[in-house]
């Protein structure tokens, strides 16, 4: 769904100019821009987006995962960024294979990511490498399974 509209977006243009490899796809839907980023570029791109004076996405609003089970790549992790200075929003998306749900932590860029990453670990089983204290946050520590995965029944485990 690469559209011309998305290419005119100055944020996307900047990102492409910075590193063409870091943007694998741009999705434009209902006025929201999503930039799909390969896993290995996530941490660098996060640092760039948060500090680059023209972009200044210094506020991480949310991190959330969508489980596409049984499709592959199974997981889509979405980072919702906000630039308070420019009143702009951007969604970063990273696609992960079901057998290897590992991501670099972005807590060094946005300290608020700490609890968001713990929540995604707890409910989806995404592991964040470099997280200072990756443990369950909403479910009990000895809980088995990750409740928001699509292969986890709504009624709970049997």
């Amino acid at each position, binding site marked *: 769904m690469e559209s011309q509209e998305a290419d005119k977006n100055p944020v996307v243009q900047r990102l492409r100019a910075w590193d063409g490899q870091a943007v694998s796809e741009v999705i434009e839907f*209902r006025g929201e821009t999503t930039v799909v980023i390969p896993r290995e570029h996530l941490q660098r791109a996060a640092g760039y987006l948060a500090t680059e004076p023209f972009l200044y996405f210094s506020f991480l609003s949310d991190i959330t995962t*969508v489980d596409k089970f049984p499709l592959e790549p199974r997981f889509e992790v979405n980072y919702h960024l906000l630039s308070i200075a420019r009143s702009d929003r951007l969604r970063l998306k990273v696609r992960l294979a079901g057998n290897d749900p590992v991501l670099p932590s972005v807590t060094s860029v946005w300290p608020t990511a700490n*609890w968001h990453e713990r929540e995604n670990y707890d409910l989806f089983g995404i592991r964040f490498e470099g997280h200072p204290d990756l443990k369950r946050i909403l479910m009990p520590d000895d809980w088995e399974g990750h409740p928001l995965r699509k292969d986890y029944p709504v009624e709970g485990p049997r």
Partner: protein
Amino acid sequence: MTTTIETPTGAAQTMVLNMGPQHPSTHGVLRVILELNGEIVVKAEPVIGYLHTGIEKSCEAKTYSQVITLTDRIDYLAPLSNNLGYCLAVEKLLGIEVPKRAQYTRVLLTELTRITSHLVWLGTHAIDLGAMSVFLYTFREREEIMKIFEYVSGQRMMTSYFRIGGLALEPPPGFLDKVRRVMDALPGHVDEYEDLLTNNRIWLGRTQGVGIISADDAIAMGCSGPMLRGSGVAYDVRKAFPYSSYDDFNFDVQTQTAGDCFARYQVRVAEIRESIKIVRQAIERVAKADGPIRTEAPGIIPPSREEMKTSIEGLIYHFKIYTEGFAPPPGEVYQVIESPRGELGFFVASDGSAKPYRVKVRAPSFVNLQSLPTLAVGRLIADVVACIGTTDIVLGEVDR
């Protein structure tokens, strides 16, 4: 009046104390593991999840309309804000526009919700810090607004009054007059609270210079709402990303620069006054606007009762919508609104079926609570109570 507490040097003997989950000042079931050196907090770790009910998982098993009743229960002190956030997200997904009269009524009711939420906060926070009487006053005024909610929707708390595409019902006659009467009395009552607290020496002693967070830290920790504005960042979703015609209203974003508990108190009290201003404007706008309270979109929005009773198409649509639901196009949206606690986001992903594939709630108090250690470390245990209070958490929203 700022006092600094010096940590005694030398071999520190620390002890660990559990505050909560059953503790009146934790506003529900929050547990904070405190590491103490004498009475001074060395480390604080919030432990949450005691109220986790799996609302996001439940959403995936319901149709888009049925989810509205669950959103009431996320932040039970601001149910209408949650209704609004979710409805706007689904409306964005569908690409439908809501009639102006419904938009203004939504603004009116969400601002009343903000007032009730801030009143509960003020009353409970004052009780936490030992001022009992404020609670009785704020709940008296809150009750008047709850009566308005009951009058308009039939429910005091779990209103589910906003529906996808507009409102559930036509507001009953005399609704605006009732709101006007309550709004006329309220500014005087806010003066009463301020008389009791703003220049009260004990209040100042318990809140000034306590729980300071700088603007940079607040942004880095993802704080929003009065937490962020109390630290001097003039970010308000209603101004930055106007929704539901907020750009038609005149109001100011309230900020304070101190970043302490007192600053957050000042911001919230000022916001009550701003909300009264917005509600007054909304009364005028709702009175002038005419037109439907729901948008027309056959197959998505149920037809009016009359149409359902008199035309066969209306009956078919009604039946289909309530049995099968409707299917938005595949895609993902993230809609953010300014709830009383800050940036409330709804991420809704659709796979083209009649049930949402994924609903994620970006709960402002979940994120705000994360900064509690920043506020509390180096302070006394008694200050932890003030810090939890001005963070304004609702555990239903933190744990979802």
